[in-house]
């Protein structure tokens, strides 16, 4: 099982190898991997539906309770099947769609990373592992949206998606850490049985943070704007990431945590209102779209909103409806996106008002589109019909605001019908007219076989519900506290749901016939700008960039002297206050006798410092500061620290040598700087000196218990087998630190080499 999760990443790494063997071979291998994963998860089906959930754990950071643990329950299995099954279709499609693209292997590398990450998200048991995979989906989404990286629009959309979903990812991490505080574990299978998270003090924060993470990922209002923009990605990406799987990760998280966090108004009311708002607003925005992919994108956002508010209702019927709706949507929307990709690929346009009569030239694609749009419209016997029926059943049994809810759902449903007709049926209708359409021919089989397959599955699941029923039941048992008692049927009779459903379809059809009217309605865009969340995203981003520019100008101005001034002043500010607070003159024992040698050394030190300040040339300053260093090492000798003395001696020597080597390269030495500057520098230097003196005195005279000191002195010979305690600490007790330090030193040396090398190369040019 661990291997199955890993296999996508292995495949990702071997994509270049496959292409080295031959593009034809590679295109056969590409869809095989998701197929293998799909077959593996299918084999788990019977076990999981009978309640045999699978768990596997590999220790990682056991001390932090972070382990590579995976857990497959109904919800995880459903998503894994969707990801790998639709993955198969998408990979197959992509081998046709991306064929001949100059960066074809790179595309599959990204897509494999995404699939692996997505499988990881839905099967992870450890929340930290879940978070890691979650972030990986955001990153691979970034790479895939920005696939056409020569277009500025792509780069902008990719960054936008990354920042929005990344923010959500961080809040998810915060939520997981709070859950750890509340339950003492990161393992979901343990947390699941912990019960009653709503009594915990952290509950509201956890709920809000999880909701935030889910809403950004699933493009809920007001974070929905990134999804339509992400439509700049290649067709298969939009189908796979931005309709069928990744954007449903938010719904997945909400469902996963439903029985832990649900039941409180903060959870249910938020999900209900935000989900409904999203469902209605985005379908409203979809009405005016003429770009076929944007049209689908807005309707995807609307469908996600529907799933979120069904989760918010939280009743048995609502959760059931959510799961059925989710499966139905994944099946038909992936197909419609793939069809949109085919149309784009074959005709070169995505403008629906210019597309018609394609059916005669692309019969198979048209068939796939037909099935998918029928499912989205909700025509019997598609799974979409079952989804719509259960959605309406959930609404009608909900107590409170039933009428308002019904009206809003009616509107969004009619919008969905409108989108389905406009994007899935209209392009294939009628006679082909104009020259552009005559050139069109059917896409290769790889690009229509998958979509048709998905359509057939949708019909099959609609007609023969038991297969679905078992799975939905297993999912339901995972996400709800109650037992499941509803069976899914295709046909419920001529009841209220059926009548409303038919009315919705009729409303959608009439919307379609009034489409010219809708296009011509001009919205007051001046006002809309301030309602649009993307406006705040843009101005916020701009603000951050200007602030960091200002900060860089202020702090990193390129003058070494200001860096030093800044560093010392900061230390003074931060360390000065506690020093002043704790310094008591009474502690200082002034009765320590002063020897003759000490006096001489102190005099030598002070004189050489004076000489440094008064130096008329740079060389003189360097030499006199060298004298300061040598006097210090003499001081170490006097106080019996030969190690320190030797080190100081060697370092001083080398410093002087270094100075001598670069002194000719420096600009002319200007001792006569302005009085005000000298005063400022003198003040900072003086204060730093006083502070260091105070700290030294405090270290000397304040008695402090130190276990470490005694430990090292005790154990140096017995455990470290050495009498030189300093050295034993360096190479044995704290050897890991030293190892890190020397590694850093080596890297720094390479850095120095690169910098100096660069400088001299510039000179040559």
């Amino acid at each position, binding site marked *: 099982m661990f291997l199955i999760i890993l296999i996508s990443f292995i495949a990702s790494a071997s994509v270049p190898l496959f292409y080295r063997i031959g593009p034809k071979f590679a295109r056969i291998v590409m869809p095989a991997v998701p197929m293998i994963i799909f077959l593996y998860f299918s084999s788990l089906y019977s076990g999981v539906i009978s309640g045999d959930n699978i768990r596997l754990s590999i220790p990682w950071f056991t001390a932090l309770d972070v382990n590579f643990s995976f857990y497959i329950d109904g919800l995880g299995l459903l998503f894994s099947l969707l990801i790998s099954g639709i993955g198969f279709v998408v990979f197959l499609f992509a081998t046709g769609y991306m064929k001949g693209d100059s960066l074809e292997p790179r595309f599959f590398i990204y897509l494999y990373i995404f699939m692996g990450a997505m499988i990881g998200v839905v099967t992870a048991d450890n929340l930290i592992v879940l978070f890691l995979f979650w972030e990986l989906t955001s990153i691979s989404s970034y790479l895939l949206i920005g696939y056409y990286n020569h277009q500025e629009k792509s780069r902008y959309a990719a960054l936008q998606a990354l920042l929005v979903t990344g923010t959500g990812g961080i809040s998810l991490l915060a939520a997981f850490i709070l859950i750890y505080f509340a339950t003492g574990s990161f393992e979901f299978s343990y947390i699941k049985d912990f019960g009653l998270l709503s009594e915990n003090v952290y509950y509201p924060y956890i709920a809000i943070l999880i909701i935030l993470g889910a809403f950004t990922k699933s493009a809920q209002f007001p974070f929905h704007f990134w999804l339509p923009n992400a439509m700049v990605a290649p067709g298969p990406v939009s189908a796979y990431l931005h309709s069928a799987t990744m954007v449903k990760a938010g719904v997945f998280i909400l469902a996963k945590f439903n029985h832990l966090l649900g039941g409180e108004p903060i959870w249910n009311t938020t999900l209900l209102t935000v989900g409904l708002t999203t469902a209605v607003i985005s379908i409203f925005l979809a009405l005016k779209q003429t770009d076929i992919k944007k049209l689908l994108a807005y309707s995807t956002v609307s469908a996600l909103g529907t799933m979120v508010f069904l989760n918010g209702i939280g009743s048995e019927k609502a959760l059931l409806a959510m799961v059925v709706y989710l499966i139905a949507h994944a099946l038909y929307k992936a197909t419609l996106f793939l069809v949109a990709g085919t149309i784009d690929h074959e005709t070169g346009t995505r403008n629906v008002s210019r597309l018609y009569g394609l059916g005669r030239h692309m019969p198979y694609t048209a068939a796939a589109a037909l099935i998918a749009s029928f499912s989205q419209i909700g025509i019997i016997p598609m799974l979409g019909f079952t989804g719509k029926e259960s959605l309406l059943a959930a609404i009608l049994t909900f107590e409170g605001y039933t009428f308002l809810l019904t009206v809003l759902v009616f509107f969004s449903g009619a919008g969905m019908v409108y989108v389905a007709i406009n994007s899935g049926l209209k392009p294939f209708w009628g006679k082909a007219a104009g020259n552009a359409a005559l050139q069109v021919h059917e896409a290769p089989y790889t690009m229509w076989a998958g979509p048709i397959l998905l359509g057939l599955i949708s019909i099959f699941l609609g007609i023969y519900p038991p297969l679905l029923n078992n799975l939905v039941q297993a999912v339901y048992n995972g996400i709800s506290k109650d037992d499941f008692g509803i069976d899914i049927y295709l046909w419920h009779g001529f009841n209220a749901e059926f009548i409303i459903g038919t009315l919705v379809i009729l409303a959608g059809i009439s919307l379609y016939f009034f489409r010219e009217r809708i296009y011509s309605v001009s919205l007051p865009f001046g006002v809309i700008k301030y309602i649009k969340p993307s406006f705040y995203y843009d101005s916020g981003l701009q603000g951050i960039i200007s602030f960091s520019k200002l900060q860089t100008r202020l702090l990193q101005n390129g003058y070494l002297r200001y860096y030093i001034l800044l560093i010392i002043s900061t230390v003074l500010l931060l360390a000065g206050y506690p020093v002043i607070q704790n310094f008591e003159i009474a502690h200082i024992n002034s009765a320590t006798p002063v020897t003759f040698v000490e006096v001489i050394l102190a005099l030598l030190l002070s004189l050489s410092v004076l000489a440094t300040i008064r130096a008329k040339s740079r060389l003189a300053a360097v030499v006199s500061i060298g004298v300061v260093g040598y006097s210090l090492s003499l001081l170490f000798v006097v106080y019996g620290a030969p190690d320190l003395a030797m080190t100081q001696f060697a370092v001083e020597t*080398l410093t002087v040598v270094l100075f001598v*080597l670069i002194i000719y390269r420096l600009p002319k030495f200007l001792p006569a700087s302005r009085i005000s500057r000298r005063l400022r520098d003198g003040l900072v230097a003086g204060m730093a000196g006083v502070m260091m003196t105070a700290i030294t005195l405090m270290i000397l005279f304040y008695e402090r218990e130190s276990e470490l000191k005694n430990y090292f002195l005790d154990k140096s010979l017995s455990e*470290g087998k050495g009498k030189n305690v300093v050295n034993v600490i*360096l190479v044995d007790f704290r050897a*890991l630190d030293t190892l890190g330090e020397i590694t850093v030193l*080596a890297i720094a*040396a390479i850095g120095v*080499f690169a910098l100096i*090398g660069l*400088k001299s190369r510039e000179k040559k040019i």
Partner: protein
Amino acid sequence: MNTTVLKTAARFLIPIFMVLSFFLLIRGHNEPGGGFIGGLVASSALALYLIAAGLEESQKLMRIKPIVLITAGLLVAFLSTVPSIITGLPFMTAFWINTEIPVAGKVGTPLLFDLGVYLLVIGITTKIIFNLAGQEK
């Protein structure tokens, strides 16, 4: 600064410095010394020679390129951790072999580690010094 006096003096001093630096390295565990100090002493010797004899002469004297020393040092330091990894003891657990070598006494992985530090310090210091000196031209 191509003075004959300094050059001759340096030529005599360098072996002494080198022996001293190595002496400091191996006795470091019990008496004042150690890889870091030893490395610095060796580097100062080379720096002295650089000033006396110039860049090319001292590069010839070193024979090995500083970057090789840096990598070798890092490698040796990591090598000293291998026994602890193989035996499964906590990372960087020390291993000692009792020998009767004068000055050093026992030989063990910490000494190997110190040798790595020693090589690395020489490598880095000479790298920086040589680079700066090479720039003057």
